[in-house]
């Protein structure tokens, strides 16, 4: 089988820190390779190194051979000539990579005009055929904002593969997608891998299972183990691979259903419109002490809006909350942890503010930090100097100080790697059960909701 890429002893350094350590791999047509590892483990840098777009400031050692030509021997313009025609990168969160103000058919046919120098009539026809094949035939004239996440993902796939590159590098292609959409993009990648070369970078074990081929498990730039997909996913040898597989929602223990007792919050006949579209109509919701309720639905279906109404941040068009909770008793955990904290002061100062405002007991902080596995030194740092997982635990700590009776978790783990995500979810569940708080858990991961929730509301 034809060798598309050969990477020999590739190391990437930032100053003295080693980000990728002596990685060797070969990608052949028809034999997909998947790199499985945590966020920030240098996986994306590898994709950049192969494409020859490593950011300046990073140092690269070792050899990359693309289709039999050594990358060192290629000039910048020769390398650029290969982009699109020989290798293509499917970017992370493709709806951000697409031009937001241009219809997708134009963005796809543009690839033909600019990369392959086709006449525009020719490339427009090709783009339409591509869209038809991906089930987007009717949607070519839409801008990305009018597409769902999965549709945007397929449009980006069409643009990335238009020029017929035999090597496709997919960087976290399932990030932010629900299971059905993940399966769709997985099917596309499998199809691509049948006769082309595919390198997938992901931390999603379900996607890795779907694609198959060879799997390389990486952590902190080191290869922990590598081998056949079936073998690694079924009998992992490294602790990290075991933890990664155990962290997947399908492996979580099924929570025992909670008996409904005293109501914490009840809302009657809620209706709300946004931009002329009815989000929900005559919705009755009752949340009970210690109950965990899942909220699922497509992006834009009004999950966060409903949560904001229940929190009292937004007034519904009609309907009302029967017994609104006092301020500080209904709290929220956010999707993007760094965005939920003031940026210019340390975490310690923020917690002090809260303690002073509500005359809380400061002595409980060390115990809580210990319980949440947070190092005391983190108190000195501002939010942006703390990792996402630690920050989300800080958000939980801040909430626990208040002993809220109602907690909304708005996709609290979607930006975290799977192991941290599983930890945060378990902590939330534990808190709700132990302190009789109602927990509204918003997520697009149906499996996760089914495992932890007493019931699920679908919008």
């Amino acid at each position, binding site marked *: 089988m034809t060798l598309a890429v050969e990477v020999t002893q590739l190391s990437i350094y930032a100053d003295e820190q080693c980000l990728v350590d002596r990685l060797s791999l070969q990608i052949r047509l028809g034999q997909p390779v998947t790199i499985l590892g945590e966020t920030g483990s240098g996986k994306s840098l590898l994709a950049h190194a192969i494409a020859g777009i490593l950011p300046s400031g990073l140092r690269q050692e070792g050899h990359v051979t693309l289709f039999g030509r050594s990358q060192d021997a290629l000039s910048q313009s020769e390398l650029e000539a290969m982009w699109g025609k020989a290798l293509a990168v499917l970017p992370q969160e493709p709806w951000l990579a697409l031009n937001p103000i241009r219809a997708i058919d134009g963005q796809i046919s543009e690839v033909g005009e600019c990369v392959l120098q086709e006449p525009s009539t020719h490339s427009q026809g090709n783009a339409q055929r591509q869209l038809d094949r991906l089930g987007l035939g009717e949607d070519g004239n839409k801008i990305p904002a009018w597409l769902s996440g999965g549709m945007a993902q397929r449009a980006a796939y069409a643009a990335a593969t238009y020029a017929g590159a035999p090597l496709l590098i997919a960087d976290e292609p399932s990030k932010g997608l629900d299971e059905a959409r993940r399966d769709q993009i997985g099917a596309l990648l499998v199809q691509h891998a049948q006769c082309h070369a595919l390198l997938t970078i992901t931390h999603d074990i379900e996607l890795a299972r779907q694609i198959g081929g060879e799997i390389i498990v990486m952590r902190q730039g080191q290869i922990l183990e590598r081998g056949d997909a079936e073998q690694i996913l079924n009998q992992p040898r490294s602790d990290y691979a075991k933890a990664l597989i155990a962290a997947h929602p399908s492996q979580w223990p099924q929570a025992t259903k909670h008996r409904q007792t005293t109501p914490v919050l009840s809302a009657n006949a809620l209706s709300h419109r946004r931009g002329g579209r009815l989000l929900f109509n005559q919705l009755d919701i009752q949340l009970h002490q210690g109950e965990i309720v899942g909220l699922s639905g497509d992006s834009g279906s009004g999950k966060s809006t409903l949560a904001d109404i229940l929190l009292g941040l937004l007034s519904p068009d009609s309907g009302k909350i029967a017994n609104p909770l006092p301020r500080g008793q209904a709290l929220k955990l956010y999707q993007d942890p760094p965005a939920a904290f003031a940026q210019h*002061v340390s975490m310690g100062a923020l917690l002090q503010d809260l303690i002073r405002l509500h005359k809380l007991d400061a002595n409980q902080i060390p115990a809580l930090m210990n319980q949440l596995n947070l190092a005391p030194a983190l108190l000195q740092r501002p939010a942006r100097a703390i990792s996402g997982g630690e920050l989300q635990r800080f958000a939980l700590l801040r909430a626990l100080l208040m002993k809220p009776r109602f907690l909304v978790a708005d996709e609290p783990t979607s930006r975290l790697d799977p192991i941290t995500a599983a930890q945060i979810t378990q902590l939330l569940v534990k808190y709700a059960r132990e302190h009789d708080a109602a927990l509204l858990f918003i997520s697009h991961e149906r499996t996760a909701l089914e495992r932890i929730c007493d019931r699920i509301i679908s919008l």
Partner: protein
Amino acid sequence: MMPRLLPLLGLVLLAALLSLVAIDLLYFGRDPALQQLQQVFLHPSPDHPLGTDQFGRCNLARLSAAIQNSLLMSLLCVATAALLGTGAGLAAAWYQGWVDRCLSFIINVLMALPGLVLVLLFAALIPGSFVMLYLAISAVLWVEYFRLVRSATLSLRHAPEVEASMLYGFGKGYILRRHLLPKLLPDLLSLACFGAASAILALASIGFVYVGLKPPEAELGLMMVELLPYYSDAPWVLAQPLLTVFVLILSFNLIASGVRHDIGR
């Protein structure tokens, strides 16, 4: 190293002008309006370090008084405009509704008039009044603060960090102190530096068209227009207020370039 050097140069230039004022006040201290008609256009000497003008008045004393006038005016105008504009911008973005509509209407009216025309209009009401000029220049300057603060606050108002603080029961003062001001401050400071420069330029322009402060007051624009007829006899005297305006504006613009860099990270 370039971006660090330029704001430093700006501070040095400003300090040089201030030391000119200090030298005059400490060692000479002459009345800037004192005429000595037998001593017209004297060349610089130990007694008159910058020479004398067409009425034999000491150039150093006049320049020093003019710099004090300009700096006092720019300081007052910037402080007033910053307070008024920031306050109004915060109110408009926070309360929205009719507060925002009223304030935005006033701003739109002000913006439809060229700034200098507004200053001329005010200055014509009570000619030669420092207070009128101060009010007029402030009224022009606060527009920028309002627009900046309003748009920044509008986008921050529903940001998760502000929403979280509201859920935890923190009040508006806390949100202003912890969330809004730290984000606004770098922009406000650089706007203040540019504002100081435009206040100085506005005062000089008004003086130059003879609508601003009245003789014998020492004011940079007024000095230029008074000295203009003598440009061939004593170009070096005319050059003094010209150069001073140039250095003042340059120094504030250079400082502004550094403010963003240092505070805005």
